[in-house]
């Protein structure tokens, strides 16, 4: 709990453990093993938080939706509830919950402080063991109530699965509108559940491939606004933009280094080939990492910053290669039929997600970092661009749906594909880190 508390402080929320009597938060049997292929979702009862208005129900609904979409939980219909929780400070009648097979129970209260802040408390109960597993409270600006709900869902997910959650995150993507041969593309940002949609650019220039900085305050992306398409930085809150570097040709396919100090990208050469460069954002020094007469693009760092995975057609067709962060020892790691591109290193470091084209299909897959253990998670006519949830257990990508692209998420198991709601067509999603 201590780490969790620290995390909450760092994002400006106040959290405090709230204990009930002398109940020890025992590591109970109530745990989901999500490393197994098939997971039976855990039945969980999420009661409306006690409140004077509708907010208690709204927060509970966001928590329930997060947990349900993960595929690991099955929120129980509120109509089946027997006990009506009116005082979340006292222990629930566990039998009322076990009899409807609620293995876990969430209760809470939301209220307004004298200074206007929202106060939200919640408890997670193991109904069969009759124990409280978590008790916390948060204070926040009332406009951030959805974020409080996501943080509560993350706490529940982490306690019951043993893995970090990913609900208090955002997605930056390309909002697409208009006909296919005159598509308007804007950068847009939203919460991971599709709420709080906002566009970040006006659509006058083609934009693509937005990626979050590790502190999730900045985006690097490619835009056609200048005399040639190049990589830019955008401060999300201020809207301030700047060109990355002063390169002679097109720059594209940018990503941040894990420490946020560098942007790695491709630079088009005069001969039409493309090589990989980094630019240090403080010193402005640029470093060339590849020098082949081929297309080298889509670079992505390993989470420890020591390695880079990228796409190259130096062997004839596009395949995936890894090299040291200084460009040393490039070696091909994909050897299957077809072509491989857009490799992205997992935030856990163990896997690389990619787009594969074979037999007229586009596939989203993962492989180990040495190229072994390839697994295809999703196949379709036209889909690409995987991005990892910060816990490395879920991927998002975009797929042509007829008329235009939309976003989807899928578990690392290849199960639980979910559409991500967006107001228009959407492509190039990038998942933010959790702030911790």
């Amino acid at each position, binding site marked *: 709990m201590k780490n969790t508390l620290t995390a909450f402080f760092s994002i400006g929320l106040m959290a405090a453990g709230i204990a009930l009597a002398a109940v020890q938060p025992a590591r109970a049997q109530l745990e989901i093993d999500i490393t197994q292929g098939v997971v039976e979702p855990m039945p969980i009862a999420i009661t409306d938080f006690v409140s004077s208005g509708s907010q208690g129900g709204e927060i509970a609904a966001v928590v329930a939706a997060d947990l349900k979409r993960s595929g690991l939980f099955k929120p129980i219909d509120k109509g089946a509830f027997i006990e009506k929780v009116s005082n979340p400070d006292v222990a629930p009648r566990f039998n009322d919950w076990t009899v409807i097979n609620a293995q876990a129970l969430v209760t809470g209260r939301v209220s307004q402080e004298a200074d206007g802040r929202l106060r939200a408390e919640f408890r997670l109960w193991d109904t069969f063991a009759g124990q409280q597993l978590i008790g916390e409270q948060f204070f926040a*600006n009332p406009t951030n109530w959805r974020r409080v709900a996501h943080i509560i869902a993350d706490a529940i997910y982490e306690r019951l699965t043993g893995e970090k959650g990913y609900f208090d995150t955002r997605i930056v993507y390309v909002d697409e509108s208009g006909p296919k041969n005159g598509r308007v593309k804007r950068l847009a940002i939203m919460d991971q559940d599709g709420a709080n949609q906002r566009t970040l650019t006006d659509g006058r220039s083609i934009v693509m491939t937005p990626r979050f900085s590790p502190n999730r305050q900045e985006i690097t992306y490619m835009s056609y606004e200048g005399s040639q398409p190049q990589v830019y930085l955008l401060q999300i809150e201020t809207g301030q933009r700047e060109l990355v570097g002063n390169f002679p040709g097109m720059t594209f396919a940018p990503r941040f280094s894990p420490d946020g100090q560098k942007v790695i990208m491709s630079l088009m050469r005069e001969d039409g080939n493309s090589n990989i460069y980094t630019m240090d954002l403080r010193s402005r020094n640029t470093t060339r990492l590849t020098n082949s007469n081929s297309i080298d693009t889509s670079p992505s760092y390993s989470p420890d910053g020591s390695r880079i995975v990228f796409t190259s057609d130096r062997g004839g067709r596009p395949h995936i290669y890894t090299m040291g962060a200084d460009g040393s020892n490039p070696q091909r790691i994909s050897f299957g039929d077809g072509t491989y591109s857009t490799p992205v290193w997992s935030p856990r470091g163990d896997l690389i997600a990619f787009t594969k084209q074979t037999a007229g299909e586009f596939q989203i897959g993962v492989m180990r970092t040495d190229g072994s253990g390839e697994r295809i998670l999703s196949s379709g006519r036209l889909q690409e661009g995987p991005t990892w949830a910060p816990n490395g257990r879920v991927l998002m990508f975009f797929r042509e749906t007829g008329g235009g692209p939309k976003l989807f998420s899928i578990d690392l198991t290849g199960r639980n594909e979910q559409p991500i709601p967006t107001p228009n067509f959407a492509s190039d999603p990038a998942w933010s880190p959790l702030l911790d």
Partner: protein
Amino acid sequence: MRRIAAITRNPVAIALVAMLAVAGCAGKNTPNNAADLGLGGAGAGAATPGSTQDFTVNVGDRIFFDTDSSLIRADAQQTLARQAQWLNRYAQYSITVEGHADERGTREYNLALGARRAAAARDFLVSQGVAANRIRTISYGKERPVAVCDDISCWSQNRRAVTVLGGAGS
């Protein structure tokens, strides 16, 4: 508590659809001449010599590529040779060569592929005597398709390099 507030910081593509039947399958049958595609809606010969329309209609402003290739095909060489001849006569134009890809490729890779196609077309024009400093290249990857169905005939139309006239009199 003092950080409570901090949480808040928290060119016109010409539709070729009607002409797709003409285009047929990928490969040798693909028309490489804008006039074949009915661009501009004017019959050959109606354009003033030396005009943009003359270039587009009578010379042909675009060439096409094979899948995942930036090799200038024989038919494309003929088109580019005509373009170079015309550009050498009307030296007042600077040009932009736009490289494009079809949708079968990832966005990032196709940007690079479009760049390679534009560079290949530029190099051919330069080899035919067009001054390199008159030519700028840009890649649109698969972001600006002209044909918007999703079969072979569309793909072959979208794998292209288009020579766009600009800066007359510059």
